[in-house]
C-alpha cells in the first residue's frame, strides 16, 4: 500500500485546527511563495501539475483559470464549491472539519493567480459543524493578517466570505450555486455566457471545488511537475476517495490517481462487510454508472472511468454486496433525483418524477410488462435535453442499473454523456 497524504495529512489531528500550530507545520508557506510570484507563473505551475477539478467534472484547473480575462473592468470573484451533496460524497467535509486552513491557503493562491480580491465559500446548509469550524478558521486568518487588506504583508488584498446553502442538491451545479449566492432559488443558468466571463453578480468568476483548491499549497511548494508525476497521464496527483456502503472500513482515503477500484475496496477499505460477494460498485456518486464486479480492475481516473461509460465524478464510491436488491437501490437513487430536480426543465422535472413512480410501482409488485420499455424511452428522451446535467446523472444511473437487471451484470456498450458539466470542479 502506498500512502501519499497531501490534503489528508492532518485528518484526525485536532492540532491542525489551531492556526498557531498550523503555521509551525507548514501552514501558509505555499501562499507566501505564491504572493511573491508573478500570477502567470502560478497558473503555469498549476497547468503543469495536471490538477483536475475534483468536484466531479474533472476539468483541468489551470486551463479553467485562463478563461478569466486578465484585465477586467468589473471585479472578479472566486466561488469555492463546498456544496458537497452528491450521495455518497463526504470528502470535502473532512477538509473543512480537520484542515480548514489548507483551504484558505489554497484560496489565497488561486486569487493571487487570477487577480481576485473577493472569494466566497458556498457551503451546504446541512454542514453545520464544518461551517462553524470554517468560520472560526477564517476569523483566525483575518486576525493573523493572512486575509484582509494586506495579505501576509504583501500588499495584496483578499476578503473571504462564508455563505451557507439551505438544502438543495442542485446548488452544487456551478451556475445554480451562483444564483443561490445571489439570493435566488438555485436554477441553473444557460451557458454561454460561461461563469469565467459572466458569473457571480454578472462578473468574471472562477468556481473550484474545496479539494481542488486544497491541493494548491503543495503544488506551489513542491512544483507542478512533482504533483503530475504522482498521478497518471493527464490526471496528476492524488485524490480523496470517500468509500461507503457494504465495506468493512468506510471512510476517506487519499490515493494516487491510477489506483484501481479493486485496491480501494479490498486493500484500503477492508473488503466487503461479512465476507460477502460484490454485486456492483458506484464509482463517483449516484450520478455515475454502476460498475460490475468484472470491471473493478479499472484505475479510478477521469479518463479510464469515462472510457467504461461511467465517470469518476466526486470520488464517492458506494459498494453494493450480493444481498442488495438492485431494483430497490435504483429506486432509492431515482427517488433522490426526482426530489432534487429543480423543476426548471420539463424533461428533467417530469422525467425524474415518472421514473421514480414507475420504479415505485415495480418494487410494490405492480410492475407492468411495458414498464421496462417506458423506462428505456426515458433514457433517450431525458438525455441531453435539459440545461444542466442533473438529468443526465439520473439517466446514467438508470441505464446502467437497467442493464444490470436485464442481463445480470455483463458488459454492455454504454455511452458516456455528451456533456458532463454538473458539480463542476
Amino acid at each position, binding site marked *: 500500500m502506498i500512502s501519499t497524504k497531501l490534503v489528508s495529512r492532518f485528518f484526525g489531528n485536532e492540532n491542525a485546527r489551531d492556526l498557531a500550530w498550523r503555521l509551525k507545520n507548514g501552514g501558509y508557506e505555499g501562499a507566501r511563495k505564491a504572493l511573491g510570484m508573478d500570477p502567470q507563473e502560478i497558473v503555469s505551475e498549476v497547468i503543469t501539475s495536471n490538477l483536475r477539478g475534483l468536484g466531479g467534472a474533472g476539468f483541468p484547473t489551470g486551463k479553467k483559470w485562463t478563461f478569466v480575462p486578465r484585465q477586467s473592468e468589473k471585479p472578479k470573484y472566486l466561488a469555492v464549491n463546498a456544496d*458537497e*451533496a*452528491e*450521495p*455518497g*460524497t*463526504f470528502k470535502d*467535509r473532512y477538509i473543512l472539519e480537520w484542515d480548514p486552513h489548507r483551504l484558505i491557503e489554497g484560496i489565497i493562491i488561486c486569487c493571487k493567480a487570477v487577480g481576485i480580491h473577493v472569494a466566497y465559500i458556498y457551503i*451546504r*446548509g*446541512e*454542514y*453545520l*459543524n464544518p461551517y462553524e469550524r470554517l468560520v472560526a478558521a477564517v476569523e483566525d486568518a483575518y486576525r493573523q493578517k493572512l486575509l484582509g487588506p494586506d495579505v501576509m504583508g504583501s500588499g495584496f488584498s483578499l476578503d473571504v466570505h462564508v*455563505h*451557507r*446553502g*439551505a*438544502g*438543495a*442538491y442542485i446548488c452544487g451545479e456551478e451556475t445554480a450555486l451562483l444564483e*443561490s449566492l445571489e*439570493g*435566488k*432559488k*438555485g436554477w441553473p443558468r444557460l451557458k454561454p455566457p460561461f461563469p469565467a466571463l459572466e458569473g457571480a453578480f454578472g462578473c468574471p468568476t472562477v468556481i473550484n471545488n474545496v479539494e481542488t483548491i486544497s491541493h494548491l499549497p503543495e503544488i506551489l511548494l513542491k512544483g507542478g511537475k512533482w504533483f503530475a508525476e504522482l498521478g497518471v497521464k493527464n490526471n496528476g496527483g492524488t485524490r480523496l476517495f*470517500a468509500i*461507503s*456502503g*457494504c465495506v468493512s472500513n*468506510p*471512510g*476517506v482515503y487519499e490515493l494516487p490517481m491510477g489506483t484501481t477500484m479493486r485496491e480501494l475496496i479490498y486493500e484500503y477499505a477492508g473488503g466487503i462487510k461479512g465476507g460477502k460477494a460484490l454485486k456492483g460498485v*458506484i464509482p463517483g456518486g*449516484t450520478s455515475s454508472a454502476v460498475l460490475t464486479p468484472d470491471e473493478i480492475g479499472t484505475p479510478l481516473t477521469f479518463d479510464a472511468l469515462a472510457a467504461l461509460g461511467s465517470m469518476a465524478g466526486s470520488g*464517492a464510491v*458506494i459498494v*453494493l*454486496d450480493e444481498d*442488495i436488491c438492485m431494483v430497490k*437501490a435504483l429506486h*432509492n*437513487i431515482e*427517488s*433522490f433525483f426526482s*426530489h*432534487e430536480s*429543480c423543476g426548471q426543465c420539463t424533461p428533467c422535472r417530469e422525467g425524474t418524477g415518472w421514473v421514480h413512480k414507475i420504479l415505485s410501482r415495480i418494487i410494490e409488485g405492480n410492475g407492468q410488462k411495458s414498464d421496462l420499455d417506458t423506462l428505456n424511452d426515458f433514457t433517450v428522451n431525458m438525455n441531453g435535453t435539459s440545461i444542466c446535467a442533473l438529468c443526465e446523472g439520473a439517466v446514467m444511473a438508470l441505464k446502467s442499473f437497467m442493464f444490470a437487471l436485464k442481463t445480470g451484470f455483463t458488459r454492455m456498450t454504454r455511452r458516456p454523456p455528451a456533456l458532463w458539466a454538473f458539480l463542476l470542479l
Partner: protein
Amino acid sequence: MLPTLHLIQEQQGYISPEAEEYAAQKLGLPAVEVREVVSFYTMFSTEPRGRHHIKVCDSLSCWVCGSSGIREHLRSRLGIEPGETTSDGEISWEVVPDCLGACELAPMIQLDGINKGLLTPEKLDALLDGISPVFQSREKGDQK
C-alpha cells in the same frame, strides 16, 4: 437572502408569512421573491418544529446499511409520522432524501444539526433518552 432566512429560522424555529414580509422589507424585495426562495430550499420550514429536530438520512449508503430499520424504530418509539411533532412539542422528525454527507457513519441521523451515526435501535434509544428528560419521563409514565 439565505443568511437572513437562516437567522429568522434560528431565532423563531420556522419562517412564518409575517417573517417573509419582514425579510422582504429589509431586503427591498417583493414578498413573493422571499416566498419563492423559502419554498425552494428544503432546510427552511414554514411550520413550527419540535424543540429538537431529527433528520434521518435515506440516501443510498444509509439505505444499504439499514436506514429503513432506523426509520421504523423512530416511528414506533415517537408514535408520530415524519413531519409531525410530539404532543409535548419536544421532538419532530423527517426523512430527508438528500444525502447528509456522512456516509462513513451510515446509517446516520442529524439531531439538531449534529451527525449521529453507526446507529442501532439501542443507540437511537440512548440518544432519545439523552436529549429530552421531559420526553423520557413521559415515555416511562406511559409504560406503567
